[in-house]
């Protein structure tokens, strides 16, 4: 496969053809913030955190879905991008009930990390404070919708990796919720294999192991990519 040479934040970077800007940047040691992206899953370009500036393009482009091209000039961290990313993270904090102080995922949460990395010291927008449900009908796992950011990583992990499609999204707009089967309590979702991939895929404390307390969540998002890579090896 042909190599492509491009510039990312002024650094000359060599990338494989077909690779995304996100992958190329990461190999060059440049971190672009993401939330809906997870190694091993398909890209949806929904969180808009990885938007970058491209010379010659008026529109901002998602790094996760934009393939590298010869001579491309990418800027990943301009003041405009940093401001937009802060605003997006703030909008998420304002949307539901993200209370790190009482969250199982505190210390292992991508949203919490994003706030720190992007310099979100406070949220400018009104907290919407919707009343969400907590479903602990499953014997091993639970889901607290207050903490869900609708990244759909659980939906994709369940569909693409586990292959059962227990999860999907119901409703629309800010009223959208991830659901299991016909919106039955998780514990009654007969398609669920209890594999736990959704738990590993979840970036926040929305999906958790039952019995874990504040900041006790143990999970490994890398598991998804491992499974996907291992599956390519057939015997």
């Amino acid at each position: 496969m042909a190599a492509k040479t491009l510039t990312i934040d002024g650094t000359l970077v060599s990338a494989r053809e077909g690779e995304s800007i996100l992958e190329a940047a990461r190999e060059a040691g440049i971190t672009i913030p993401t939330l809906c992206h997870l190694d091993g899953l398909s890209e949806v370009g929904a969180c808009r955190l990885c938007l970058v500036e491209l010379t010659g393009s008026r529109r901002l482009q998602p790094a996760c879905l934009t393939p590298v091209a010869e001579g491309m000039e990418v800027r990943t961290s301009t003041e405009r991008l940093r401001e937009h990313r802060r605003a997006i993270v703030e909008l998420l904090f304002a949307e539901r009930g993200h209370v790190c102080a009482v969250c199982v995922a505190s210390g292992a949460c991508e949203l919490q990390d994003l706030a720190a990395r992007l310099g979100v010291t406070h949220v400018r927008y009104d907290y919407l404070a919707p009343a969400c449900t907590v479903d602990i009908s499953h014997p091993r796992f639970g889901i607290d919708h207050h903490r869900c950011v609708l990244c759909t990583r659980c939906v994709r992990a369940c569909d693409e990796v586990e292959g059962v499609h227990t999860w999907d999204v119901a409703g629309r707009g800010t009223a959208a919720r991830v659901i299991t089967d016909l919106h039955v309590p998780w514990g009654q979702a007969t398609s669920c294999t209890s594999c736990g991939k959704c738990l590993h895929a979840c970036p926040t404390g929305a999906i958790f192991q039952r019995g874990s307390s504040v900041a006790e969540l143990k999970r490994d998002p890398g598991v998804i990519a491992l499974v996907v890579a291992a599956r390519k090896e057939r015997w």
Partner: protein
Amino acid sequence: MTAPKLRLATVWLGGCSGCHMSLLDLDEWLIELAARVELVFSPIADTKRFPESVDLALVEGAIANEEHLALITLVRRRSRVLLSLGDCAVTGNVTALRNPLGTAASILQQIYVDHGDPRGHVPTGSAIVPALLDRVLPVHAVVPVDCFLPGCPPPAPRIRAVLEALLAGEPPPATPEMIRFG
């Protein structure tokens, strides 16, 4: 001749006092601090009225009732720099967990009657406890705030870093290590 001491206030609104505990965790540095500031108002001091001409006010807690609302307005008016200290002041945090449950009246009904004693009633009439606001708000939703130090509570070293910068008349450090909700 030494510089005039900076007039420091600390305020405790709708919070658990954990942020103040964290402040006290600064241990011997507090002695150093005392040499440079004059503590003019604080739950750990004796003053009952918020004084005029405060240089720096550290505010812990969210705005949850009428008393908080009145006090924060006064604090803002009389303070040059206002710092939201800790998650309750910055986000509403645990104090704001009641917001999804509805208005103050509906929450009191749920707590005292629906989930409490079905024959009970919501206490009314006395002026001892200030009336709850319908929604718990972070401080900056009510008055302008100059700097923010999240954390539940913010660890003592972070409080010290912010205070040192402010005492030196510099903006507080905004590195990722300084920002951690929870």
